[in-house]
């Protein structure tokens, strides 16, 4: 019985997360070929790397205020 209850709560959680999915974006993605999807992922990864580099050199808001930027 406990296993059934656990499974139920798991499915409820999955449904909750599924509710927030942007179906239109998913449909657009499904129009791409698998290779185009991979290239899109690569672009995301590159952006993530660039964001990490930028974060390392970022000037926090407080420091900007102090320096009058």
């Amino acid at each position, binding site marked *: 019985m406990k296993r059934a209850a656990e499974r139920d709560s798991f499915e409820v959680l999955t449904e909750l*997360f*599924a509710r927030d999915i942007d179906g239109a974006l998913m449909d657009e993605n499904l129009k791409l070929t*698998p290779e185009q999807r991979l290239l899109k992922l690569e672009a995301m990864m590159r952006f993530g790397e660039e964001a990490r580099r930028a974060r390392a050199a970022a000037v926090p808001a407080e420091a900007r205020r102090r320096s009058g930027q």
Partner: protein
Amino acid sequence: MQPPFLQKLVDALVSSRVRFVIIGGVALNIQGHARATEDFDVCYARDRENLVNLAAALAPLNPRLRGAPAGLPFVLDVPTLRAGLNFTLSTDAGAIDLLGEVTGLGGYAAADALADEFEFFGHKLLVLNLDGLERTKKAAGRPKDLVDLGSIAELKKRRG
């Protein structure tokens, strides 16, 4: 222009005839859910020939243990692959996770049985299908896996 890093890793594995199934976030992207991921997860076959091929494929890419202290001796060769099972590696082409066994799924044979064949970067490649991804995500059960499970459910609905 340099080929994308995923292509470099795929080219290296395919040119050395490594038997592998693409799993994890990259598989989820190929199956149709766009979400960020930072590494390339593959489930690899553990027979001797494949371990030889896998070591040869990655050697030119300078594989090292991800997160290990700099200078820690590590050689990804057949004895190392045989002694271990799952490896999280950094390479000169990017991060790759080698899984001999996947939680909720099993080893290569189980992954192969639930893999779709896709053609990209000029290669025919095996990619874990939505049922396989669902099993791994349910077994892992982290918050990000619940989000992925929601996406998998939506993708399945769209495929009917």
